[in-house]
């Protein structure tokens, strides 16, 4: 007989062991799924996890792409992790990402074709502000009317998506674009562009900001009052009140901070890899970042690693689609399984498994 027994306190060891175990489990389960689809499981797993980094033919292209994909995931996930620790569930990072991109791009396009070193910093501020204000809508509604931030933030994603379509066809459409939707390409406007900083690495300002955000989040969570208050609010709201924490402030800080980071991610994306505001700008980073945040155990360093891993499965997944003809939906299912396995493995952190007859100890 197998029984689960609650540990007196969560196991430190298993907290660190479960993410790698989940990755191993997903390789096995994913391989099984690919086998069911009639593909060679070993080859599929190799293409997803190994080839993007080390294949002689593609690695020079796909390696920089990993940083390009990981940066927005890490930025957004760092922001989300604050709220998730406090029990503030911002599911609408995708919307804040879009609004940050629109606000930042709009500022840049307003100056076109003036050249100035101040334009890009202004765009960064506007991008952060766009994400921040969009996130303040669920925050203020929750504080004032106790609305559910999960629903409000999620529904605002669809509003943001429609607004994106609207400006792509209207306010921000490229006047020289021959009637096609989409804005001017910011990469071709030097003052507003977010270029690759070191050739061949994929590292743009978003990557720098993501690493900076990891460091700042680490310090805030471990050594600053706000990190302690966030953790306390999430674990024990009554104890937090007793400790003098203002729960409304925590709601505003968590949603605001994740909004800022999501907005920045959007701005760096629109001025860099994507280049323009267009109807297909939304990429799902805001949703995938939720998986990244949990895969990284809501810990800044964990999120850094999880973001890189997730980016790897993105690139590897594209390669697998290309080379083996694995359907895109199977790749999405594969990524989703990662979170599923991680949460399932969490049992090991809080419980110990006893096999056989119960002994007296």
């Amino acid at each position, binding site marked *: 007989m197998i029984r689960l*027994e609650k540990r*007196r*306190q*969560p196991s430190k060891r298993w907290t660190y062991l479960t993410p790698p175990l989940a990755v191993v489990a997903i390789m096995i389960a994913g391989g099984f799924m690919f086998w069911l689809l009639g593909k060679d499981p070993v080859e599929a797993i190799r293409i997803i996890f190994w080839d993007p980094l080390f294949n002689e033919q593609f690695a020079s292209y796909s390696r920089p792409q990993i940083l390009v994909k990981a940066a927005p995931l890490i930025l957004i996930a760092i922001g989300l992790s604050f709220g998730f620790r406090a029990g503030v569930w911002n599911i609408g990072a995708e919307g804040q990402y879009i609004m940050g991109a629109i606000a930042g791009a709009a500022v840049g396009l307003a100056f076109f074709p003036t050249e100035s070193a101040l334009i890009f910093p202004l765009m960064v501020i506007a991008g952060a502000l766009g994400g921040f204000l969009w996130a303040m809508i669920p925050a203020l509604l929750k504080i004032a009317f106790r609305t559910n931030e999960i629903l409000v933030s999620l529904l605002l994603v669809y509003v943001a998506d429609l607004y994106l379509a609207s400006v792509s066809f209207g306010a921000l459409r490229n006047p020289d674009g021959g009637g096609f939707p989409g804005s001017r390409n910011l990469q071709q406007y030097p003052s507003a562009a977010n270029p690759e900083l070191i050739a061949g690495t994929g590292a743009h300002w978003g990557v720098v900001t993501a690493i900076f955000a990891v460091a700042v989040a680490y310090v805030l969570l471990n*050594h*600053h*009052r*706000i990190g*302690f208050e966030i*953790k*306390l609010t999430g*674990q*024990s709201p*009554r*104890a*937090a*009140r*007793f*400790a*003098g924490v*203002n729960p409304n402030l925590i709601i505003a800080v968590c949603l605001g901070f994740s909004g800022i980071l999501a907005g920045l991610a959007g701005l760096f994306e629109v001025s860099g890899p994507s280049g323009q505001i267009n109807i297909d700008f939304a990429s799902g980073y805001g949703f995938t970042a939720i998986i990244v945040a949990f895969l990284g155990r809501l810990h800044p360093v964990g999120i850094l690693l999880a973001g890189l891993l997730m980016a790897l499965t993105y690139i590897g997944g594209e390669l697998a689609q290309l080379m083996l003809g694995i359907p895109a939906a199977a790749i999405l299912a594969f990524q989703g399984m990662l979170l599923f396995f991680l949460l399932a493995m969490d049992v090991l952190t809080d419980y110990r498994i006893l096999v056989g007859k*119960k002994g*007296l*100890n």
Partner: protein
Amino acid sequence: MTGTLIKIDGLTKAYPGVIANDNVSFQIDAGEVHALLGENGAGKSTLVKMIYGLVKPDAGQMQLRGKPYAPAEPRAARAAGVAMVFQHFSLFEALTVAENIALGMENPPPMRQLSDRITTVSQDYGLPLDPHRTVGDLSAGERQRVEIIRCLLQDPKLLIMDEPTSVLTPQEVDILFATLRLLRDQGTSILYISHKLEEIRALCDTATILRGGQNVGTCDPRQTAARDMAEMMVGSRLHVPEKVSHATDQVALTVNRLTSRAVSPFGTRLRDVSFQLWQGEILGIGGVAGNGQDELLAAMSGEMQVNPDAIRLGNRPIGHLGPNKRRRLGLLAAPEERLGHAAAPDMTLTENALLSGKVRKALEENGFLNWNKARRFADQIIDRFDVRTPNAANAARSLSGGNLQKFVIGREILQNPLVLVVNQPTWGVDAQAAAAIRQALLDLAAEGAAVIVISQDLDELMEITDRFAALNEGRLSAPRPTADLDVEQIGLMLGGAHGMEVAHAPEESTAAQ
């Protein structure tokens, strides 16, 4: 009326790291009130849970009226005639008495018929209760009657009662005992769990004493000295705190016409609470649970803010200040609920030391936390208050109730408060730890601090307080010197027998709704 009802033979139950029951054997005769006596953690609850089918024993067997008895679940135990009244009630506050009782029945009769039966049973056994009242409006004593009547409707052969008097006023205890004696005379056996010796001497025919999971002796409580039973229970001599009054004539705290909202939907709001607290004194605030204790603590700690002049620390109005501002000025508090209110269960003791000690112990500089200093503070609490734990890196929930309570009280005392407010400081704590906590509160007052002890344990209040006031439906009586009071008078201050009038004048309470 004679013969063995239930025979318990060698019951053993182990949990990881602790043997809750070790080869426990005893028997209960038909028509007997049998006491199960022991400290918190002695294994009483585990034992009765096995009898009631909630826990399966690892070894040993039971016989009910000569037949093997091994209930797989409480339903089987009830079918065999075993009923239990738990210490913590499982009632839905938004439903009526009759609806609550119907929910617990296998095949509830129509509501009108059930109401009639409830009224009949409540009158037969002298337990006044109106089946149509909403449970949320009932006092703790009345809620207990709901649970008892729920059991009596099943016509049990064995009624298990887990610490039934902990929520009752002395007058309500008398009513309960009269009912239990009536049941016994009709042939129902009662297994009565308690750690209060005087009650057991007044009520029970036989007592089985548990210590550390083992049966350390069976005796006739009416023939055995309370002191002997206490020593069997504890296993050693108990240190009883010494009470010397240090009250001065300097005002530490003034509460003036404090009125508040309730902290929960069925909570009790404070109405016009006024008192003065002197430096060096311990003021006891007694009352049955749910009469405004939680609200009073929240109003004092700053979790609930009130009108500034309602609370004055020295001369300074502080009613509008939040918890940390009050801490800075010297008003500290320790709430009743250890896990989840006074301490965060999954956080380490170091983090929990920081939780309330941040301000006065200067554990924070410019928003950054000084973890080394916090750890030293936690170590200091652990050391000074004899908290049994490997080190401060352990989670709060890994500590036993008594040890965590010593930590929580110690955390506040070591911050040198001017005024300390504690709610139920020794609830669910073993006798040794309770004595240590009471002594620490006495020492704090001796050093000149003012202490408010909110408690439902009258013995505790009699033991350590200088003055006593009763909280009843959100109103506080005028404090009186504890030395001048006896249990009878305190009972009357607590509101006498709550709801006694209800059964005799049901139309009145219906009109009141």
